[in-house]
């Protein structure tokens, strides 16, 4: 991820910026606007999927290259992102608070944040700040963005690629731990379908919030089309 090349502008932060513990950050959020949206907490210990999503967002524009986007944000831990249009996956690095001149903003730093660029036609992304209501990110590419979900995992994705199969088609996607909802995007399948992992003919359905270690030789099937009547 080449952050410097993909971000339109950095957040304007006035005053000091200092490290902030996660618990303190959340306490601060609970006092603030939008605190009712907090459905979980950021894990101090990395290793679990974390979802920061805004499925209701509708920025509704074709964003140009190097344009920063702000979207409403809700925070949930280990929850399914309902039909996200975009899903980001990154590595949680820490939280900090910044004084913007319009009040305190809590931010989360991510490294190696990335979009499923192959599937979505977005070349890159950098997350640089959010508060209780806003996720601000920079994207490159031209894509109508109707909503954004962000997922973090505690382990960095390796740069290795995995040669996998989706049905009868070969796909090359990043290897390593991947949240299934993110994997769907990387495979280019509809978020609403159910992904099955096939091992020796055995089919196992995968939950959206499940994290699997993507490796070469894996075989997936995307099955969907049904609905509760």
């Amino acid at each position, binding site marked *: 991820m080449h952050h410097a090349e993909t971000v339109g502008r950095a957040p304007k932060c006035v005053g000091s910026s200092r490290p902030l513990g996660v618990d303190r950050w959340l306490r601060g959020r609970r006092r603030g606007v939008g605190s009712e949206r907090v459905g979980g907490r950021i894990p101090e210990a990395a290793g679990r999927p974390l979802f920061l999503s805004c499925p209701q967002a509708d920025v509704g524009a074709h964003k140009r290259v190097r344009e920063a986007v702000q979207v409403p944000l809700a925070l949930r831990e280990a929850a399914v992102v309902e039909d996200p249009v975009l899903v980001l996956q990154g590595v949680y690095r820490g939280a900090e608070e910044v004084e913007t001149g319009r009040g305190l903003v809590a931010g989360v730093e991510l490294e190696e944040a990335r979009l499923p660029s192959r599937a979505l036609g977005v070349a890159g992304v950098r997350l640089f700040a959010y508060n209780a209501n806003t996720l601000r990110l920079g994207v490159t590419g031209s894509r109508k963005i109707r909503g954004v979900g962000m997922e973090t995992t505690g382990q960095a994705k390796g740069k290795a690629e995995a040669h996998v199969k989706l049905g009868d088609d070969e796909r090359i996607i990043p290897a390593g731990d991947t949240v299934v909802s993110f994997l769907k995007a990387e495979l280019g399948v509809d978020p609403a379908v159910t992904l099955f992992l096939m091992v020796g003919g055995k*089919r196992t359905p995968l*939950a959206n919030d499940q994290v699997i270690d993507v490796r070469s030789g894996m075989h997936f099937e995307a*099955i969907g089309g049904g609905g509760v009547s």
Partner: protein
Amino acid sequence: MNADERETIVAALAVAFGPAEDVSPAPDQPLHVLVHAAELPGPWTSPARALLRFTDWPKTRPEFFIDRSVVNAAGDPPRSSSEQAILGGSWRQFSFGFPWAEDGADPVRAVQLWLTRFSEPT
């Protein structure tokens, strides 16, 4: 459905979903297949027993029943479901529609389609 067809279906389901057996009440009755440990996606109870009843196969999809113990994270069974007495036991049947075509009907795909129901959390 003749005996070979029954055997083929049960074998295919066993490969795809683990141990499966023909539990039909009689050879002249519709094929009933018990899948002993079908894997369901979270948050649903898994693995779980599943029962398939092949009536008028392949013109119609098999009926699918799941063990009554299957619940989600809130402890609730799938919505729009009901209990059914089958082969002397009680099973849960749920409402779930998906397109079905006789041409190319595949029992494994049919079960996969049924299992996609459990991608919904309630």
